[in-house]
């Protein structure tokens, strides 16, 4: 199957309580499409981490999930401040989240590492003052 099915979501940057809605929605859609629980978990957790990052750091953004026959691609794009040092940001435990976010249980510095761990491929493009786009692939 070469055709893809695309799901697009706008991530609201102002509403922290609704963060995760796109991931929950994707989980349900993938379940309806008959993917394995493991695949669904990997996609939805990776996407949730990305959603949270965009809410914390970039005032929202967009998420596109492209479903192919053999893989699921997730593209998260924001117009936030960009990531100055991607290697540093990828280190477990490194976080620039503010205290009010940490008090909610976020900001553990596990977001990007979780996204890498849960996907088969992950690529970050980021430019300071322009934004960040993250490409992730989960093989099905």
């Amino acid at each position, binding site marked *: 199957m070469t055709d893809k099915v695309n799901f697009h979501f706008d991530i609201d940057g102002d509403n922290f309580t609704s963060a995760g809605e796109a991931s*929950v929605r994707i989980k349900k859609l993938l379940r309806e499409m008959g993917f394995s629980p493991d695949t669904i978990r990997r996609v*939805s957790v990776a996407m949730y981490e990305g959603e949270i990052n965009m809410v914390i750091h970039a005032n929202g953004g967009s998420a596109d999930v492209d479903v192919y026959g053999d893989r699921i691609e997730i593209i998260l794009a924001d117009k936030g401040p960009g990531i100055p040092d991607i290697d540093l940001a990828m280190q477990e435990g490194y976080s620039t989240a503010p205290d009010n976010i940490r008090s909610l*249980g976020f900001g553990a510095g596990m977001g990007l590492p979780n996204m890498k761990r849960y996907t088969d491929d992950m690529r970050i493009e980021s430019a300071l003052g322009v934004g960040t786009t993250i490409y992730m692939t989960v093989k099905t």
Partner: protein
Amino acid sequence: MTVRELAALPEFEAVCLPDGEREILGGYAGDLLSWVMGRASEGDAWVTIMSNVNIVAVSTLADPACIVLSEGVAPDGDTLERAKEQGINILTTSLDTFDACVRIASAL
């Protein structure tokens, strides 16, 4: 044991029980949400002191059998409302996190 059976123990109280027959397969304790999503297993009883609405999204994705709020923590209003919508079980206990884990482990 099921979530309903755990909730029936004197130390625990169900504040949201839309799926009481869900089987508890193990447990996980933690308050850092990314850590929980990375490490908790499906079917766990997740013990935490975090009560904000984001625990519902984390549970929907990581799929624990229930959330157990320890240390006498009560869920925020939004949290309960969202948990009902999403079918997430929430119990509370006045036990601290360690004792709650011990109690759950001994009951499993």
